[in-house]
């Protein structure tokens, strides 16, 4: 009887220790889980974190930008799928820019498969791609007077509004050309253009433990095992205590009856 009580106390003590350990993780999982259930309300899906250390942690290589495109007062640099215009990130998930032209109060940025039109203050007017472009891939962008020019393998095309295009013969076109960025500047700019991780992705990976790679999964496995132990020990403690109380009460009743 004494041994049974000792085992029950031991089990209860360990149940408590495992419970406290699990509670820390459960609290963390509950908080991150609630946040993940409301990513839109908390705008976690829209908030993107540009941090070289985080990109490296995710195994994303931070490519330093090699060239920049200058046009009047604007300076465009592209790297790691993002564009920096006058030191401000204006686009993400975009291809490397081929050039930039300012024409008729608009700023045009070309990639191999798209033409992005921005207002001078940086608002996106339209992304033109596919068959809305005269031919693909785009090889270069330039200006001839008030006309925007695109160079493609099938020729040079001119437009004034990026809606209608007409084939044009080469004349005095001022083509946008990249200029090499000094190596001393590349690292500073690379930090601004580090591949972005969305706050939602980060939270989801922290929640699941995948942020720590294989070790994260092992930690979560251990937490799951602790919960299994908690479940089993809880059931055992509950039934043993219940039986112990019943026996004590039964013994008490018998003792009272014997008086």
């Amino acid at each position, binding site marked *: 009887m004494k041994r049974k009580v000792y085992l029950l106390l031991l089990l209860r003590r360990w149940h408590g220790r495992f419970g406290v350990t*699990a509670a820390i993780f*459960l609290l963390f*999982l*509950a908080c991150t*889980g609630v946040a*993940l259930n409301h*990513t*839109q309300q908390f705008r976690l*899906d829209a908030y993107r974190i540009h941090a070289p250390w985080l990109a490296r942690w995710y195994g994303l290589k931070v490519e330093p930008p090699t060239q920049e495109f200058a046009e009047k007062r604007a300076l465009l640099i592209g790297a790691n799928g993002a564009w920096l215009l006058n030191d401000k990130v204006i686009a993400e998930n975009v291809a490397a820019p081929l050039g930039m032209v300012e024409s008729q109060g608009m700023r045009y940025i070309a990639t191999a498969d798209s033409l992005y*039109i921005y*207002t001078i203050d940086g*608002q*996106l*007017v*339209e*992304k*033109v791609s*596919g*068959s*809305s472009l005269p031919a693909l891939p785009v090889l270069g962008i330039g200006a001839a007077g008030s006309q925007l020019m695109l160079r493609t393998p099938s020729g040079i095309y001119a437009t004034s*509004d990026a*809606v*209608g295009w007409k084939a044009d013969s080469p004349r005095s076109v001022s083509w946008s050309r990249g200029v090499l960025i000094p190596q001393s500047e590349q690292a500073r700019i690379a930090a601004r253009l580090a591949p972005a991780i*969305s706050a*939602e992705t980060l939270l*989801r*990976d922290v*929640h*699941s433990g*995948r942020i720590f790679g294989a070790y994260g999964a092992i930690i*979560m496995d251990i937490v*799951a095992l602790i*919960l299994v132990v*908690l*479940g089993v020990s*809880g*059931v055992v*403690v*509950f039934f043993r205590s219940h039986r112990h109380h019943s026996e004590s009460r039964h013994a008490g009743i018998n003792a009272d009856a014997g008086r």
Partner: protein
Amino acid sequence: MPKLSDWVLISFLTLSAHAVALEQIYQDPEVFISDAFGTRPQPKVLWLTSPAQAEIARILGHPPTQLRQRYWADGIKSVWILEEIGKEEPITAGFVIANGRIDHARVLVYRESRGSEVRYPSFLRQFKDATLTSDAQLSRAIDGISGATLSVSALERLARVALYLDRLSRRQ
């Protein structure tokens, strides 16, 4: 003793697999335009003025991503290729509007990891003949799909924007 909520959390932990975004092209937008007209008309553009931007922002819940919208029209019907994020990735949908009513809608490109059931004709048929009410709502209720709530909501918003843009284009 662990409570039910503990097990719910463990289940959630196990099931929260990393979402992998896959781009599924159900119909090339160019083909959608050609199918609507039999041939491909010249594109037109609609500039979104400040009041139009405000109205679209009210419909979408966020400002429009661009200031100019391209569309195709032949005097009777207009075609709008629009994009909206369901949960994480943009859904590209095409809408054919005739006389202020949705003639048909189609999911052209789907990039989300879940909820692609919105591409099924049985769901999209609900949009047929829908018009825009005075408070910029659809004239008919759209039944949702379990597990595709955000995609359904995105398509509903896009349908309203398409009808609104069609109305604007007719005023031009």
